[in-house]
């Protein structure tokens, strides 16, 4: 009974504060609103779990998750190294890179475009749970097979987005280049690729999320005994949900940070785009 009252009061106060904050337009107001919202969610979670005696194996409260993070930093660091540094980043770079190169190759050849696009769509539609064991058989248990899964997942989004970006050069700009006697290669390098950059960044951001998911899920299917996916699956089986949630928090943090970094890079590189004016 007391828990319910506390929860309702907190919700009420929190909503009132948020509404007031959202009205303000100053920079501190804009930063404070998501922070307050996040803290409110954590508070409600903590009170509900502790007050209603939710079993630890079903949903641990944020305080237990915080303790799990603090006491398992060496393990979390090793898992981060194995999954993010050795599987996600190489896979993401190779997948996006080959997708971009493929898009440029397809741009120059209608024959390739008609042949490769459906194949690319087929590869990207294959479920991870199907590809992962096959990659383990081809590339072994270590990070190579996880990177291979990430490549398979990130190739097609980049191919499609970069292809769309290259195709959308407007007639006026193409005519201008022609009036400068610019050949295919010069037009490609100086006009079409730069104007395709917003699309490329779109794909890079999308691929960052896919890469993280792909690497973690691929680790469920055979890995050396380090890695975020390995840790999640084995600690869940051992009912040590604190570590599972710690890994989830880390993964969510990495996903958010990579999105923010890519957005920053995009802003620096495509400063000329109308959306930034």
């Amino acid at each position, binding site marked *: 009974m007391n828990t319910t009252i506390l929860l309702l009061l907190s919700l009420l106060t929190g909503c009132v504060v948020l509404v007031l904050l959202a009205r303000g337009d100053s920079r501190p107001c804009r930063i404070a609103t998501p922070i307050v919202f996040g803290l409110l969610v954590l508070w409600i979670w903590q009170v509900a779990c502790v007050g209603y005696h939710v*079993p*630890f*194996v*079903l949903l641990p409260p944020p305080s237990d998750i915080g303790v799990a993070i603090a006491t398992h930093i060496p393990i979390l660091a090793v898992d981060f190294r194995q999954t993010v540094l050795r599987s996600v980043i190489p896979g993401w770079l190779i997948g996006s890179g080959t997708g971009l190169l493929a898009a440029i190759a397809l741009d120059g050849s209608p024959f390739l475009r008609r042949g490769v696009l459906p194949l690319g769509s087929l590869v990207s539609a294959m479920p991870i749970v199907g590809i992962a*064991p096959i990659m*383990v*058989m081809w590339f*072994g*248990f270590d990070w190579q097979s996880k990177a291979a899964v990430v490549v398979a997942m990130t190739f097609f989004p980049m191919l499609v987005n970069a292809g769309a970006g290259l195709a959308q050069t407007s007639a006026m700009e193409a005519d201008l280049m022609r009036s400068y006697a610019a050949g295919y290669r010069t037009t490609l390098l100086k006009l079409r690729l730069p104007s395709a950059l917003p699309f490329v960044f779109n794909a890079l951001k999308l691929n960052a999320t896919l890469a993280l998911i792909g690497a973690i899920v691929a680790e469920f*299917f*055979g*890995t*050396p*005994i380090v890695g975020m996916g*390995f840790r999640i*699956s*084995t600690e*869940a*089986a*051992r*009912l*040590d949900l604190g570590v599972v949630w710690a890994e989830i928090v880390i993964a969510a943090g990495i996903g958010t940070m990579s999105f923010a970094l890519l957005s920053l890079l995009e802003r620096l590189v495509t400063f000329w785009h109308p959306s930034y004016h």
Partner: protein
Amino acid sequence: MRRLLLAAALALGLSGVAHAADPLTLQLKWVTQAQFAGYYVAQAKGFYKAVHLDVTIKPGGPDINPEQVIAGGGADVVIDWMPSALAAREKGVPIVNIAQVFQRSGMELTCRRDSGIKTPVDFKGKTLGVWFSGNEYPFLAWMNKLHFSTNGGPNGVTVLKQGFNVDPLLQQQAACISTMTYNEYWQLIEAGMKPSQLVVFKYSDEGVATLEDGLYAKQDEISNPAMADKLARFLKASMEGWKYAMDHQAEAVKIVLANDTTGAQTEAHQTRIMSEIAELLVPDPNGLGYLDVAAYNRTVEELMAGGSAPVITKKPEGAWTRAIWEQAFGKHPIVAK
């Protein structure tokens, strides 16, 4: 009108007299296979019906953890191995062993002869595969006993989380993999390897065996007299099922195959499993399902002797009970051999 009312009253009365079967859900530790023949046989031959039980058998699988299922209320009784059950107890899941079905361990480490391994000392510096999800505890305890770190390096062993297949050995990605005497070892033979190409280390021979398939229920269910009665009836009928399965193995295999909804199991493989499993339930001088306390204590000692990383940190209290077994069998245990 009066005749109608009389007929209705009679019908209600008669239906009350007929004893309704009590429902009970059993969660298996793995997929439908002859490892659980006793329960399928008990269901098919009507042993559960004879004790007024309506048993639902839920097959397990790679991501199904019996302790999680019972903690979440998905089953009334589960099949589990003692090490992971004790570890779950320490994590706060109040499960209790009500019967020990397998008296002997079927776990072994199978190595390629061409990896140069002749004795466990040769594991140093090699890559070994082990399942996780509750099956890693006996392996970790053994590595602790051999003083090998599991973090790799030339003085330890590199451990792989193997999937539920034998590919790592076939593809030479590991020098040794975990196998059960009744299942994966025969998958290797069926895949074309010859026994002369393999070196097998049985956990029971190495003195590191732990108790395997047993029946577990939650503490509060056991304390409830009505539920304890259901569990006792279930235990009696299940052990009758096991005795029948061991004496009529071909028929048991057919029953198991009939219950396999995946269609993935073959008669040849299940026949092999059945004959190997039949050897794990015996010797049972005190009757099927009787927990030998000495074996239980050996398992506990082994799990606690982990050095820096023991599987359990303190001696379990109240982790097993013979009350249900005694209620089921009393002075008339079923002895198979």
